[in-house]
């Protein structure tokens, strides 16, 4: 029998690998755009050497496009850096709004490939919980996978955070067609182990087309 801790550890590595692969893909895409613009500048220079006049407006647009891609890569790397540091402390107090925003950014490419929109409430409600940050991110990722699968191509998953009177909060994934909510969510052993590790509970509210992840205010071992 595989222990929950082993399942969580293996799932964590898979999650980290999946996110890292997606980010490297995004960086390669940006580099490919930069490469073409730089190549175009080189082509224009070679043409200028042969007497073709340079177009200053074209040069300016191309340089601007390169700068835009550099900013894009900078944003991707900052997101990756935040994600990488989420394993620094196994138990920590985190802001759920920041965590959900981070996961939405990390899942943007997965959503685009599935042709699903991700729409976090603006601004997300800030709620502080003491938890296992990396396992929580992994769990939110599983919820998003379920929600995106349910929403289907052309759908939009709306994310919001609702504080609970007793502390803790619900993370809501709304916009799911009732007809798609036929299977119980997160029943696999990985999901169950992550729910156990974060003391979270997941439920479906079929009538409103919502998946709800309920998180306690704190788990043992965190102040």
């Amino acid at each position, binding site marked *: 029998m595989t222990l929950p801790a082993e399942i969580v550890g293996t799932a964590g590595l898979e999650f980290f690998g999946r996110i890292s692969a997606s980010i490297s893909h995004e960086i390669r*895409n940006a*580099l*490919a755009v930069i*490469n*073409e613009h730089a190549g175009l500048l080189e082509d224009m220079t070679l043409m200028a050497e042969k007497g073709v006049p340079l177009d200053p407006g074209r040069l300016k647009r191309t340089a601007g*496009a390169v700068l835009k891609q550099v900013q894009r890569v900078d944003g991707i790397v900052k997101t990756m850096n935040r994600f990488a540091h989420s394993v620094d402390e196994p138990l920590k107090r985190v802001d759920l709004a920041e965590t959900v925003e981070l996961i939405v950014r990390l899942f943007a490419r997965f959503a685009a490939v599935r042709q699903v929109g991700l729409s976090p409430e603006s601004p997300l409600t800030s709620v502080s919980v003491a938890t296992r940050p990396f396992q929580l991110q992994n769990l939110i990722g599983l919820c998003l996978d379920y929600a995106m699968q349910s929403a289907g191509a052309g759908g939009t998953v709306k994310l919001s955070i609702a504080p609970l009177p007793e502390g803790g909060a619900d993370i809501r994934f709304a916009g799911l067609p009732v007809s798609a909510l036929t299977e119980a969510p997160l029943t696999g052993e990985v999901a169950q182990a992550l729910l156990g590790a974060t003391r979270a509970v997941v439920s479906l509210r079929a009538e409103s087309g919502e998946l709800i992840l309920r998180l306690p205010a704190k788990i043992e071992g965190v102040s």
Partner: protein
Amino acid sequence: MRILLVDDEKEFVATLAERLGLRGITADWATTGEVALAKAAESDYDLAILDVKMPGISGLNLEKLMAQQHPRMKFIFLTGHGSASDYHSGIAENRVIDYLVKPVNIEALVAKMQAVLKS
């Protein structure tokens, strides 16, 4: 030679098409598989260069659809992953697919295009 470039990164395909044009190669582009299929139905392309992972129809599925409709068309895949898995997914169906990893050197791409068209 008439080329169709398909990639969901608009700036990438548009700029690459412009650079191929400077080399005397006529290149149209599309950012979705659906638009690519429509363009291929209207024009007689010799070669399609396809991104592997795209929203909607993936590059591998797009190649299958285009190959059915345009049996003479040749294909090259571009991947941002740089992993062998996408490549091997072609071999698994007893096909050897030609591919390049992004970012691409345009002279290497042109050489690959010429080699694929001669094969």
